């Protein structure tokens, strides 16, 4: 790869032959030529030689570097550099072997397709958006339909009432006056059923009237009813929370309150059944008539239990615990907010998981309403919290904390 290097002498010879002049003249000329170019460059001038090219100075900026041996930082001064740009004629002549080659645009088909895609993108976006909108609309209409369908089923709430009434009337009088039971029960049943029916009818009519006038309020009511239904029939609590996300805050709190109320009632009912089952055993010996009367009562209670059990089975005590708003009265410790202190870090320290910071925040909400802005030097009280609520291994606890987190962080 070593190229032959020709010196000025050889060049002069070649020039003299070419120009058909004596060597001496050619030499003088060559020397003069390069001297002139040098002078021109030293004067920071562009020297253009037609047919050959132009010489020009270019400024190289000073740059920082490091001495490799000592590691010292050194600055390389800026300097001028002589550049040579060949003339077009020379360039073409030199590049002749490759002149026929042209820049090839690769994978042109793909590129075209890409371009088409790019150009079509907005339209496609519009199309997909339209699809999305239509989907949402379809969902909404479906939801409305189901909601309307649920209206006749409004008696789910009265059902519970009925159960409760029955339970009350079944259990309480049983201890006192069992003979009257069958009669009273049937009467009460009929009465309550009638009442319920009339109630539901009224509700239905009312709802229909409202529907014409206040569509929005009805929607909220329906969502509340749906939420109730789901609290009864859904097996997982996640679904409840998902449902809650649709609601605004007051509605959500209402739902939670209603839910707690219902849960308590269900627990009560359960308790009554237990007591009822115990009571007959005690009374069997004393009264023979009781047996005859109890049997239907038991079957009824069984049927009721069957009805009730699937309802309260998924709602365990933890959910009630989680959903009841906590009151913070006892505190483990107080922490001073320093630079770098985080509620999450405190939560990790005291509760074992960072997600439970929301409870610390809840306890200190009166003093520092914004969890993101807590001044340095603030005293943060660490509340005592039921171990069941801050169980880092329980998915429900984490989900609850997450839910609260979303609630507080999204707040403006």
């Amino acid at each position, binding site marked *: 790869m070593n190229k032959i290097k020709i010196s000025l002498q050889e060049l002069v010879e070649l020039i003299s032959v070419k120009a058909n002049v004596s060597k001496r003249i050619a030499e003088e000329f060559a020397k003069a030529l390069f001297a*002139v170019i040098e002078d021109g460059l030293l004067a920071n001038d562009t020297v253009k030689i*037609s047919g050959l090219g132009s010489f020009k100075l270019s400024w190289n900026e000073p740059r920082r570097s490091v001495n490799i041996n000592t590691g010292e930082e050194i600055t390389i001064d800026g300097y001028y550099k002589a550049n040579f740009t060949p003339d077009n004629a020379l360039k073409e002549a030199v590049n002749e072997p490759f002149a026929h080659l042209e820049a090839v645009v690769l994978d042109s088909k793909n590129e075209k397709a890409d371009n088409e895609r790019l150009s079509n993108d907005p339209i496609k976006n519009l199309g997909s958006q339209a699809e999305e909108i239509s989907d949402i609309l379809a969902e909404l209409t479906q939801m409305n339909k189901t909601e309307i369908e649920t209206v006749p089923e409004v008696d789910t709430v009265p059902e519970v009432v009925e159960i409760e009434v029955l339970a009350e009337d079944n259990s309480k009088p049983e201890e006192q006056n069992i003979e009257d039971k069958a009669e009273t029960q049937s009467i009460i049943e009929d009465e309550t059923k009638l009442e319920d029916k009339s109630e539901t009818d009224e509700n239905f009519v009312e709802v229909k009237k409202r529907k014409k006038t206040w569509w929005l309020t009805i929607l909220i009511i329906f969502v509340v009813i749906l939420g109730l239904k789901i609290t009864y029939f859904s097996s997982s609590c996640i679904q409840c929370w998902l449902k809650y996300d649709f609601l605004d805050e007051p509605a959500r709190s209402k739902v939670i309150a209603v839910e707690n109320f219902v849960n308590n009632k269900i627990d009560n009912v359960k308790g009554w059944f237990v007591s009822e089952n115990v009571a007959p055993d005690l009374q069997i010996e004393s009264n023979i008539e009781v047996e005859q009367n109890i049997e239907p009562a038991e079957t009824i209670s069984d049927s009721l239990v069957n009805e009730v059990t699937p309802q309260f089975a998924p709602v365990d005590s933890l959910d009630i615990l989680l959903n009841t708003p906590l009151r913070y009265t006892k505190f483990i410790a107080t922490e001073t907010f320093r630079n770098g202190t985080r509620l999450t870090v405190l939560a990790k320290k005291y509760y074992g998981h960072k997600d439970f910071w929301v409870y610390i925040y809840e306890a200190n909400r009166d003093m520092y309403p914004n969890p993101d802005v807590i001044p340095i030097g603030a005293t943060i009280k660490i509340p005592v919290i039921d171990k069941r609520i801050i169980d880092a291994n329980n998915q429900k606890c984490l989900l609850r904390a997450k839910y609260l987190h979303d609630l507080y962080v999204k707040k403006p």
Partner: protein
Amino acid sequence: MNHSDLISKISEKAGLTAAEIENLLVATSQVFTEQLLDDKIIGIQNFGNFELRLKEERLSVHPTTKVRTLVPPKRVVNFKQSNNLKDKLKGVLQ
């Protein structure tokens, strides 16, 4: 500095007529082209080296359109200034 300026300056220095210089300049450019095409390095002392270099083909991507283009190989004339000239330029122009 344009062509006529160059000629006049060279004529001053070398004591030659403009026509002669014109002729010699054309000859010089021809010799340069020939020698470079002959794959030779033209080395001029205290000035620099002229050399023919091959630029390999490369793949270029347009930054905005992302169009990939295969740029063909080409031959270019490269000039490398001598250290002498470099020092001179450093000393004079700061």
